[in-house]
């Protein structure tokens, strides 16, 4: 009797063992996809090198909830971005906006590239000047040809 009871109870176990994840996805897949799309462009402030979409930090979860709720209220992406920037600053944006203090960030690499090309051109020109073209005399030409053609003489 006890054995049967044990078997029945074991059989019932899976009923209580549900995995409590991804329940948000089921709620509204379209909205969830839109939320993830936006969250990928936003930075998690706790981990700093992870997007809001991939972070497991609690703050990221709260912010995803916030984004989800605001989307459900009918706000557009820009309004939600403005909402987050007003609280956390431009740092939440993975792509920094173009402002006076980010000019160096946006154009610095190109400036460095130009400087590099300039230095390269300068060096090449200088080298051409310091290495004048040498003219070999006929005799020297013949000796050189002989040396190149007859490897015995080189030894």
């Amino acid at each position, binding site marked *: 009797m006890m054995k049967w009871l044990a078997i029945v109870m074991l059989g019932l176990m899976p009923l209580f063992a549900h995995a409590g994840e991804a329940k948000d996805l089921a709620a509204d897949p379209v909205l969830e996809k839109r939320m993830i799309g936006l969250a990928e462009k936003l930075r998690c*402030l*706790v981990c*700093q090198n992870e997007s809001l979409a991939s972070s497991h930090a*609690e*703050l990221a979860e*709260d*912010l995803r909830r*916030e984004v989800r709720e605001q989307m459900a209220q009918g706000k557009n992406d820009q309004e939600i971005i403005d909402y987050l*920037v*007003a*609280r*956390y*600053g*431009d*740092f939440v944006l993975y792509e920094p906006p173009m402002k006076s203090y980010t000019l160096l960030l946006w154009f610095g690499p190109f400036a460095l590239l130009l400087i590099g090309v300039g230095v390269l051109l300068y060096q090449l020109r200088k080298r051409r000047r310091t290495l004048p073209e040498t003219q070999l005399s006929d005799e020297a030409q013949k000796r050189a040809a002989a040396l190149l053609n007859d490897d015995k003489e080189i030894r």
Partner: protein
Amino acid sequence: MMRFILPLVVFLVLAAFLFKGLHLDPHEVPSPLIDKPAPAFTVPQLLDPKKTFSPQEMKGKVWLLNVWASWCVSCREEHPVLVALSEQKIVPIYGLDYKDKREDAAAVLRNGGDPYTVTAFDADGRVGIDYGVYGVPETYVIDKKGVIRYKQIGPINSQNLRETLLPLVAKLEKE
């Protein structure tokens, strides 16, 4: 001569930038809320859930809003500093207990002393989001007009209290 000077200059510039970088904390993200009115909220108090707290009640006073939680390790480090500060009665400290369990937070105040005039209870972290909280402890210095004037990210210690927070409070008191 140029062969030596140019690399030296490059080296010095690089060294200067790297040296500066040593003293910058990438976790300190400047808050856009500085010089903006402190966001309004009304939440229950931690120790007396029937009462509420809202920053609008604080108009006319310079005060500190300290965001903390019982699960936050640096807050434990900060706690005795706050208790000592509250005993000096220089500036009122209001707490915002962020994403916490009521009984855990109450136990911290019971065991370590309660430096807060009132602790507001932000169970789901929504007030925290409005204040741009991303890592507790954080402390906001709010002036008489209800404007956030400074945000201390990370624990208050005797050094930043002496060098930054208290001089600022004294200045704001005179405004």
